């Protein structure tokens, strides 16, 4: 069930991305971009967007000054950190510390490998989920189509419409043939120089 759900979500996201990625161009070319909108009541989302823009402007204004201060601070911190680094190097020579450091690196590598395994398993799971969901959707679609096509109401409607089309076609054929009868007899009557023949009306 979880696999099916995951697959459905994945498929839905793919479809949604495809729909969103498709450019929607209205007939007659793209409409010109409206830069001015009519005045209306302020909206919370618009206000939040405005705040973000203000913050961005502030950042651009004070950015260089902050960078200078940060550089100075970093220089001071580096000077302060030098004794700490020396102390750490000294500590690194202490008995037992290199072994602990190696163990730490080993843990880190092992963790990396485990994450890679999880990622591969996740990829496999996603592919299998997609296949399961696709099969389930196909089955559902076929079942629905089968039910719809077996519906007696639908059959009745199709039968009635087909019969209606046939009846109309035949009636049209009969009407036209009667009309052509009159035309033919009229033509013959004119050729023979006699009055108009009797009509079907």
């Amino acid at each position: 069930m979880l696999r099916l759900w995951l697959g459905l979500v994945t498929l839905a996201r793919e479809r949604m991305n495809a729909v969103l990625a498709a450019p929607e161009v209205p007939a007659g070319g793209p409409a010109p971009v409206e830069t001015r909108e009519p005045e209306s009541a302020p909206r919370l989302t618009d206000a939040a967007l405005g705040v973000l823009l203000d913050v961005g402007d502030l950042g651009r204004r004070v950015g260089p000054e902050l960078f200078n201060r940060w550089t100075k601070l970093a220089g001071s911190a580096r000077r302060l950190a030098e004794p700490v680094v020396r102390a750490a190097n000294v500590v690194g020579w202490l008995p037992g510390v290199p072994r602990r450091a190696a163990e730490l690196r080993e843990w880190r590598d092992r963790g990396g490998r485990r994450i890679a395994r999880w990622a591969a398993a996740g990829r496999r799971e996603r592919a299998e989920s997609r296949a399961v969901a696709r099969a389930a959707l196909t089955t559902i679609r076929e079942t629905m189509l089968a039910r719809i096509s077996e519906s007696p109401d639908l059959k009745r409607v199709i039968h009635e419409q087909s019969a209606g089309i046939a009846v109309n076609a035949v009636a049209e054929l009969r009407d036209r043939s009667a009309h052509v009868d009159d035309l033919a007899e009229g033509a013959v009557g004119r050729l023979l120089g006699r009055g108009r023949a009797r009509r079907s009306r």
Partner: protein
Amino acid sequence: MTTTVVAAGARAGFVTRLGAFVVDAAILSLGIRGTIWLLDVNFRVLRRFALPVSLTTIVLFASPVIVALYDVVFWRLWGRTPGKWLLGLRVVALGGGRVGVGQALLRVVGYLVSALPFYLGFLWILGPRRLGFHDHLARTEVVRASYGGARSTFSS
């Protein structure tokens, strides 16, 4: 477009009757040709076990009788062949009433006679009375069935 409102019982004109004739001819042609083809295939499959007479030839020579039977049976039983049904026509005795067997046979003979002098007997239908030579001979007429008759079944 001009719409012709056709009165039921009015005599049908030349073009409508020609259309019905063509439909019937197509049905008969397909039926006879199909039968001949089947018999031929049967003959080829059975080879030396096939009948010593050629059924294909028999059908070919019997086709005028088949055509006559087709017309007589349909006119007598239903008053219309499939082609006439499609065009909404009915063959009735002059003045109304169902066509008898004798009338139907006479009408078939009338077909042959009508066709002989350059189809003049058929062209007679273009006259004001809308009767062909075979109609005069068998004292029949071809009328339009109850209009809106597309809905009527063949046996009605």
